[in-house]
């Protein structure tokens, strides 16, 4: 973007463009930012009205990054939090971003935004010094105002008549965490009031004049092919239009044939969908949720591991279940496409739409209103694609909001897995042997954090009968569950306390030891008293720059597992917002309980039977233990993200507590979908 274009769009004032010297930003930028210097990671503008507007391609999905990034600006620019506006995830207004994933917003974007704000503050000081003809060092800044002697001015006044752009490198120095005044404090959620009053517009809430509602005809089975279609009954319904299109990139399980309907309201659209008469050619035989584990090993690339004496664990596929299902609204104007959609990757969705419609990037605008959660489950642009196809054919804006059944069937899932492990502990507690094989789930946290000589650890690519993708911490949850469960097995094999065993073998990782000790102390691990049907377990690990240790207490009564108390210590460097960090830690534990105990995608013959909330159980109020979080604040370390890592400890901690209570080692996730008995036979 040329300088004059920038101010034409934003008004006069000053702007700071921050060049991402990490080189993480790649080709594909566009819209307003198309002629920006390469590698711009973020930018910030202070208008003549004093409004501070900051821009990032990252999105807010509930992890409170909008608040933490706003606090970053307030901290470095010395302005009130309320005066900062953040534009996020808008492909025409914000810098290119590869997607909100991997807990990268805090380690990557947060310092960039702070640097941009710090630079803007320095520019304001220059302006004030010139204007007042005073020594720059005499000027103080606070609350959005500069002052020196008898001079005082708001930042907006200082920018009046200015059109200044400064491009800076991402490596300019930052205020150290020990001197933070706004950052590091519990700044309340900046969109809180909009949320509690129902005013916030989620992607599924967006309206446009002349809006129609769209539905898509999905196959009755993954891989089934459309053989014939009679659309006459549907097309005869007043106000209904039937749409057919072909995807240039077929979707796994769905194929490339898009058949859809649009109607003036969602219920008429549903009726029209039901009136479509389609015949389908069935797909080849597919494994079920019960025999998928054998399938993983049979289809492993290069054959399965040959090691003897391996203990087998299994991990079920689970669903993200964002409470807001996928949603999109598409509108075409003179060959240009605008889509409002819930996604973690607005620029990735733009790329999908550009490919489908053969459009240049300036003709596709994707806007991502803060959405009803993602958990790694909303990277692809399925709903956006459907809405765009329907809207193009209808010649009107079309809303395409998925139903819960569609979300639980046609989204992608957290991968299932077979994990095989073997190991041996010496009588003194040192781990002498360690072998670990993950089939299908992935390589995150495949390697043990403990000091083990000659560890053999391997990820085996295989085939998945279900569409699978990212999830909060993805494979790290599976790998941590198995490793930490097996660590418990090894500790018991030599009669050593599970905490002492871990501490001994974590001699190489002070941060891991620190969270274990913090959790154990708060939990009262050393003083725990064994009573009938009660058990205590712990687990620890690290992922995405965070270190976590979890202690759990459970009761098991006639196979019914009740998690009574959980203490989790978490360390992710310098804490950015303590209250929101606690919220993330507690939320991860709550969500993780579902995958630990009862969540499982059930499928057979290419059909998902767990396709409703009445058939797919997620954690509720009554499932909650007492949860205590212990934050280990390391102001000397770079802040890491916290949306993912806190989820990895709960499943193994609970599994180890179940063993402590019952003597039964549960080697499958979920551990107790119908109570404990059935789970015990779950190995594949």
């Amino acid at each position, binding site marked *: 973007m040329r300088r004059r274009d920038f101010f034409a769009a934003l008004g006069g004032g000053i702007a700071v463009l921050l060049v991402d010297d990490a080189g993480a930003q790649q080709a594909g930028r566009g819209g307003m930012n198309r002629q920006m210097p390469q590698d711009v990671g973020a930018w910030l503008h202070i208008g003549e009205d004093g409004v501070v507007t900051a821009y990032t391609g990252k999105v807010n999905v509930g992890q409170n990054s909008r608040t933490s990034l706003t606090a970053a600006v307030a901290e470095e620019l010395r302005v009130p939090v309320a005066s900062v506006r953040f534009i996020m995830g808008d492909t025409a207004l914000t810098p290119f971003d590869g997607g909100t994933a991997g807990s990268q917003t805090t380690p990557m974007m947060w310092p960039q935004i702070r640097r941009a704000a710090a630079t803007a503050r320095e520019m304001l000081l220059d302006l004030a010094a010139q204007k007042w003809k005073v020594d720059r060092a005499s000027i103080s800044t606070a609350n959005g105002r500069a002052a020196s002697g008898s001079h005082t001015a708001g930042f907006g006044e200082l920018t009046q008549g200015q059109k200044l752009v400064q491009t800076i490198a991402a490596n300019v120095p930052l205020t150290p965490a020990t001197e933070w005044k706004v950052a590091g404090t519990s700044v*309340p959620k900046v969109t809180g009031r909009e949320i*509690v009053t129902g005013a916030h517009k989620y992607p599924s809430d967006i309206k446009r004049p002349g809006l129609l509602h769209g539905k898509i005809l999905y196959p009755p089975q993954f891989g089934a092919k459309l053989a014939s279609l009679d659309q006459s009954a549907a097309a005869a319904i007043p106000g209904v239009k039937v749409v057919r299109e072909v995807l240039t990139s077929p979707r796994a399980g769905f194929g490339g044939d898009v058949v859809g309907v649009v109607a003036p309201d969602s219920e008429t659209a549903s009726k029209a969908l039901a009136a479509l008469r389609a015949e389908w050619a069935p797909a080849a035989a597919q494994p079920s949720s019960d025999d998928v584990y054998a399938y993983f090993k049979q289809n492993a690339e290069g054959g399965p591991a040959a090691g003897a004496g391996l203990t087998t664990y299994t991990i079920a596929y689970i669903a993200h279940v964002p409470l807001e299902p996928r949603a999109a609204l598409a509108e075409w104007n003179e060959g240009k496409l605008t889509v409002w959609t819930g996604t973690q990757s607005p620029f990735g969705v733009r790329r999908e739409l550009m490919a489908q419609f053969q459009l240049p990037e300036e003709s596709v605008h994707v806007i991502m209103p803060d959405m009803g959660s993602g958990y790694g489950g909303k990277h692809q642009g399925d709903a956006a694609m459907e809405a765009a196809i329907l809207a193009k054919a209808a010649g009107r804006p079309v809303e395409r*909001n998925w*139903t819960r059944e569609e979300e639980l069937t046609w989204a992608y899932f957290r991968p299932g897995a077979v994990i095989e492990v073997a190991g041996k502990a010496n009588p003194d507690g040192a781990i002498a042997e360690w072998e670990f094989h993950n089939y299908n789930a992935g390589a995150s946290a495949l390697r043990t954090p403990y000091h083990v000589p000659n560890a053999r650890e391997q990820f085996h690519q295989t085939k998945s009968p279900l569409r699978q993708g990212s999830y909060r911490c993805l494979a790290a949850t599976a790998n941590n569950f198995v490793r930490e469960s097996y660590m418990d097995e090894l500790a018991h094999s030599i009669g050593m306390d599970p905490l002492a065993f871990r501490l001994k073998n974590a001699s190489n990782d002070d941060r891991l030891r620190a969270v274990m000790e913090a959790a154990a102390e708060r939990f009262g691990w050393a003083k725990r008293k064994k009573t009938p049907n009660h058990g205590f377990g712990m687990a620890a690990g690290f992922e995405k720059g965070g270190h976590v240790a979890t202690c759990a207490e459970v009761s098991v009564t006639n196979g019914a597992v009740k998690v009574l108390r959980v203490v989790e210590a978490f360390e992710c460097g310098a804490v950015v917002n303590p209250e929101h960090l606690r919220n993330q830690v507690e939320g991860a534990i709550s969500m993780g309980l579902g995958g630990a105990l009862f969540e499982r995608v059930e499928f057979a013959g290419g059909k998902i039977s767990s396709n409703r*909330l009445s058939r797919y159980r997620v*954690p509720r109020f009554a499932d909650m233990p007492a949860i205590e979080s212990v934050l280990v604040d390391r102001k000397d370390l770079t802040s890491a993200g916290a949306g993912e890592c806190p989820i990895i400890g709960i499943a193994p901690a609970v599994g180890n507590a179940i063993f402590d209570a019952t003597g039964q080692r549960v080697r499958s996730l979920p551990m107790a979908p119908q109570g404990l008995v059935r789970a015990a036979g779950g190995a594949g």
Partner: protein
Amino acid sequence: MDNHAGIPGSVQGSLRHNGTMANIRELDVNGTRRRIDADAGRTLLSVLREDLDLTGTKYGCGEGQCAACTVLIDGQPARSCVTKVGAVAGKRIVTIEGLAPEGRLHPVQEAFLEADAMQCGYCTAGMILGAVALLRSNPNPSDAEIVSGMNGHICRCGTYPRIVRAIHRAAGKGGRA
């Protein structure tokens, strides 16, 4: 407090002589009579969101399992995704948009903010209205009573402990709760 008068022409309009559902012409929403023209068999949720643009009420499951779509009907919590609009004509409907009519937050809304009892916030409107109804019937609930009263609500972000704290906090505020 819920003895709101019926609206002439709305209640009796829900059944035609031949037994089919007729169109509903008016709803009492957030203290205002709103003109609509909706098939009586449509869900209250779709009429609120699509016809009246009251999008604070959320779709979550369509089968009454998650309570994101909770509204108050004559003061009682109802799942608007499984409530036919024909069944609520003439009744007093309150959505999240009607809880702070003059911009002054309801004590339950204040308490949710103070307890940071949300992450993505998509369940929040339903949670707040569920909590308002719970506190009306039980002004000072125990933990166990909150859990059993709210267990039909899903927060996928897992802010349940904070919501329990928020409800206790709102109970302490008394007032309109």
